[in-house]
């Protein structure tokens, strides 16, 4: 199903960036930190329509970045499912970053220090100590992002429209049904499907997170 594909890729591809940004925000002080922080939260604050519109202006075919990406890499977002994934990723990004950042802040820097005394450089410390320890947080972030992506529709429909088979995600289909008299029943069916999928993902992630946490606690 398209929605699944969109949410999956949106989550998967934004995860590394999310971890990177969260790490940056949690562990470094730099000029413009608050600006970055604000930028990350922006999609949460803005009405989705505005976000979608801004995406359209930036990543649309006529948009600055969009045109460049198309020329340089043949990468088109506008009115493709990739665009839906982009919109979902952007909307879900603040949730993901927050969750991961909280997890990073909870890691005891003393363990990272111990790793560095044993010869691990910063990237290695991150890969071998920080990352495994924040895994439950990363999973939580990913699941939040996935759920959000499954539910996202305001920005998506504004950015890439609602083209069946191409950019129509579950929520935008729900939206269309809700716009016409008598569509409620149909809409509710779709809602149930969406809820079922998201809950499944949720339970899966809970279970995964628990397993990881248990492994760490060693009990």
């Amino acid at each position, binding site marked *: 199903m398209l929605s699944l594909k969109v949410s999956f890729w949106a989550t998967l591809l934004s995860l590394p960036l999310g971890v990177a940004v969260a790490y940056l925000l949690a562990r470094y002080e730099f000029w413009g930190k608050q600006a970055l922080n604000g930028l990350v939260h922006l999609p949460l604050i803005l009405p989705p*329509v505005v976000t979608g519109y801004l995406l359209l202006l930036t990543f649309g075919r*006529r*948009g600055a970045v969009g045109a460049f990406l198309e020329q340089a890499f043949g990468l088109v977002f*506008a*009115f493709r499912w990739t665009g839906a994934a982009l919109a979902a990723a952007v909307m879900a990004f603040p949730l993901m970053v927050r969750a991961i950042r909280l997890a990073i802040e909870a890691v005891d820097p003393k363990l990272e220090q111990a790793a560095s005394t044993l010869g691990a450089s910063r990237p290695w410390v991150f890969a071998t100590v920080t990352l495994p320890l924040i895994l439950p947080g990363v999973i939580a972030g990913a699941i939040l992002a996935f759920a959000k992506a499954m539910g996202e529709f305001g920005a998506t429909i504004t950015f890439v*429209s609602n083209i069946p088979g191409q950019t129509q995600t579950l929520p935008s289909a729900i939206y269309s049904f809700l716009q*016409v*008299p008598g569509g409620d029943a149909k809409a509710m069916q779709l809602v149930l499907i969406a809820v079922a999928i998201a809950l499944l993902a949720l339970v899966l992630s809970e279970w995964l997170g628990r397993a990881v946490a248990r492994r760490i606690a060693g009990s």
Partner: protein
Amino acid sequence: GDVLVFAAASLKTALDQVAADWREETGKQVTISYAGSSSLARQIEQGAPADLFISASSEWMDYLQSADLITAGTRRDLLGNRLVMVAHGVEVARIELDAGTDLAGMLGDERLAMALVDSVPAGVYGKQALMSLGQWDAVSSKVAQTDNVRAALALVSSGEAPLGIVYASDAVADAGVSVVAVFAQESHAPIIYPAAVTANSTSVDAQAFLEALSGPGAAEVFRAQGFEPLVGQGDG
């Protein structure tokens, strides 16, 4: 698909039906993207691959036309609609709406549900109608505005608001409301759903589907959904 249509979301039921019929007839596939007229128009402005645009108001069509984004000569007024007042409940007595009606009194401290009166077309028309009846000043403080007509209808249907102003096409299928009055056509700007082929359409079938939409078969479908087909009243 052979034709990609960008259409106002309120047309979904009818348009899906027409598109299905047309495919049976011609074997051609029509794909329809439903969203708010404003979103769709902006997307077309940004190069969306739409072949045909059906707007819920003339405004957004004018906007595209002035930017030369629709093919000259293909624009036509496809449908009209009526504005009605609905009340919560089944078979509620009709209301005589004129300057003397105490609409505010009927509402008491309850609300009149409408779409956004300054931006969403149904709301704009409703405000015009109430103004022409001289009712606006009395009820304006009691209006509950929603972002689309369907939400306004839901407010009435659930009993949250006793009265609401919606399109006739919306009132058709909702069992929880009854139409208690139909606003006179002259009391507001004409409700028109214009359609046009976009300027960068590459589909050879777009014009054909537009014709089909204006045809008698389509008219029947539209009428069943509460719309008023305006065949032959286009400007081009």
